[in-house]
């Protein structure tokens, strides 16, 4: 029977920290001394809202990413879920056991061996003795530490250490898992291995709340994203949608010369995702990154051999069209880059031309078509991003300054095989030649 009650619910949650001038004031306030002072004489401390009026709820099995700039309140939010920190306002309900992967390094000692560290850290993760043996073996297997296992941790390389920590932290099986920036441990090989381990949580139906600076990771694991900025909830919606809006916001910030890491910047985040969207000439609403004046994309199209569509069969031709409009008269040299993405945020491929030289007067249009005779995609939903760059006559490098236009995930389409499943990565084009039977 499906359980309708949410795994986690924040209702109007706020967290405020007073900003004391001295540790002495902090101590006096903590001990309640100021409450004894008449209200009129009581010192007023400025306060800082780490979180303000946050409401959302997470259903069981849902995986939610939390994004935002530094100081947005992401870690504060995760801390509140652990129940050791109390919200200043509002309520938090939890349904099920919470486990947090914020505290990597708990129970770890440099002098103890890898094996001792595994035991110690697992004990702190509350793993019962009866499961210890099985899990320890599994971790040893995962980490591939070999002979180092019985050496002190201090002899480990950074990568080996973080592998061990990751493996130990993810050895438990909670209902609600909160993760703070721990997926980036180790080299590419282990990043993949770690991702596979994370998928395990997904398959077991764990509810997850993930903070990461890697949008790729968020897209890979989360269906939904919450965007925080300076303690406020800016947007809460489908992962790709929110991330696209967030990236447009970051790009606009950097266009204004504001460091995206500066939490004090006064450029207000949008009230809704619509505010981050731009309407194209063909009526589409897209996430447009700011670019320099020159040409802008005005319309997009997607066709198979029969005409416009957003459903393709494997092996069908894929025709991508865009038209650009000039904002001012000029001789232009442009490069168009079209990128294909999976719904999980993985880049599938990139199509680009060499250079396109043309002259346009303001308001004039130019159409460009890219055609692949037979796409090699398999079942799934795909997104298409478009960019137009200004290049010099040698066709070299497009810095950010050279960007005319970028539309992130502006089109999407599905590839549906006519019958049966195919779970291949690509569908390879193929010509079969059969030798004629030899005549006797």
């Amino acid at each position, binding site marked *: 029977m499906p359980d309708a009650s949410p795994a986690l619910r924040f209702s109007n949650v706020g967290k405020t920290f007073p900003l004391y001038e001295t540790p002495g004031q902090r101590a006096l306030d903590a001990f309640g001394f100021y409450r004894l002072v008449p209200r009129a004489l009581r010192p007023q401390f400025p306060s800082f809202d780490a979180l303000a009026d946050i409401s959302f709820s997470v259903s069981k099995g849902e995986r939610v990413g939390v994004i935002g700039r530094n100081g947005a309140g992401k870690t504060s939010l995760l801390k509140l879920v652990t129940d*050791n920190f109390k919200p200043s306002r509002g309520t938090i309900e939890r349904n099920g056991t919470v486990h947090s992967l914020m505290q990597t390094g708990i129970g770890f000692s440099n002098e103890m061996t890898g094996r001792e560290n595994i035991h110690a850290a697992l004990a702190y993760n509350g793993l019962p003795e009866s499961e210890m043996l099985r899990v320890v073996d599994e971790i040893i297997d995962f980490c591939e530490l070999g002979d180092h296992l019985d050496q002190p941790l201090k002899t480990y390389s950074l990568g080996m250490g973080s592998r061990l920590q990751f493996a130990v932290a993810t050895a438990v099986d909670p209902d609600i898992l909160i993760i703070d920036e721990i997926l980036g441990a180790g080299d590419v090989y282990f990043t993949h291995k770690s991702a596979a381990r994370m998928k395990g949580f997904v398959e077991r139906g764990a509810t997850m709340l993930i903070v990461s600076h890697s949008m790729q990771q968020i897209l890979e694991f989360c269906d939904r994203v919450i965007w925080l900025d300076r303690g406020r909830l800016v947007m809460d919606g489908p992962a790709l949608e929110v991330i696209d809006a967030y990236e447009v916001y970051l790009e606009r910030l950097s266009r204004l010369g504001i460091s995206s890491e500066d939490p004090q910047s006064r450029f207000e985040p949008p009230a809704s995702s619509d505010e981050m969207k731009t309407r194209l000439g063909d009526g589409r609403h897209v996430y447009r990154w700011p670019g320099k004046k020159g040409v802008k994309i005005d319309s997009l199209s997607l066709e198979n051999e029969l005409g416009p569509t957003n459903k393709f069969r494997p092996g069908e031709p894929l025709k991508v069209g865009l038209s650009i409009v000039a904002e001012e008269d000029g001789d232009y040299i442009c490069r168009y880059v079209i990128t294909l993405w999976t719904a999980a945020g993985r880049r599938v491929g990139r199509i680009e031309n060499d250079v396109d030289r043309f002259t346009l007067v303001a308001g004039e249009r130019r159409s460009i078509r890219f055609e692949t005779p037979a796409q090699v995609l398999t079942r799934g939903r795909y997104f298409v991003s478009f960019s137009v760059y200004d290049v010099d006559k040698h066709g070299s490098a497009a810095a950010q300054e050279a960007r005319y236009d970028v539309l992130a995930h502006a089109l999407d389409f599905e590839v549906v095989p006519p019958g049966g499943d195919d779970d291949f990565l690509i569908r390879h084009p193929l010509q079969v030649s059969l030798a004629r039977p030899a005549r006797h």
Partner: protein
Amino acid sequence: MTLARKVGDFLLAPWQLVFRHRAILTTTSLIELRMMYAGSVLGLAWVILAPLLLLAIYTLTYAYIFQVRVPGLTTADYIAHVSAGLIAFLSFAGALAGGSVSVIRNKQMLTSTVFPPELLPVRAVIVTLPPLLVGGLVIALGAMLYGSADTSVLALPVVMLLQFMFTCGIVWVLALVTLVLRDIQHLIQYLVIILLIVTPIGYVLEMVPPRLALLTYLNPLAYFVLSYQEILVRGALPTGKLATAMVLSSILSFSGGFWLFQRAKLAFYDYA
């Protein structure tokens, strides 16, 4: 009825916490001990070796080098007197030092949902117990062979348990206060020296001028030290006022300290 119930809850609450988490508490305390000695050649053997070494040094210094003689005590009794006071004091001082920083040094544990931060101070006290237990055992054996102790030593575990309770209570409060008043960690070492002076370890209570004896009675650690000495030096059980004061201060400290910690923890964790 409700009042009785409230009092019962108040007294039992810390025991429930310790009992419910006994497995993780035992394992992590062992890990903590192992960490303290990790990388050393002798490893965990130091847990036993350290108190033995200490007792040997003090015995040698007081009885054979300084040749201290206290009227009414044989040399063996005097050694028992000093050692008994010493192990109680060292365990307590170690717990104050380690316990006061137990939460602040492990603030990453505050994000843990498995290991309740309430256990951090308890763990800090537990890791100071081996010297007390090992030392107590050695002194008990020595005092039975060469001194005046007899079956009275059977009361030692009770006094040790009471000292554990007393210390936990103090450390719970100190650990929280240290979160906002970091000065505590610097202050503790001087507090410990004062404690060493006002506790009858190297001297006997009869040597203290009556006007200053009050100071000893205001020092709860003295109740435990005097009780150990009663058991190990005189072969008697602590009775009357001494036993009452010890039992009451232990229970009050244990349950009161825990109550305070529970009431104030969420307000204080924010400062970690």
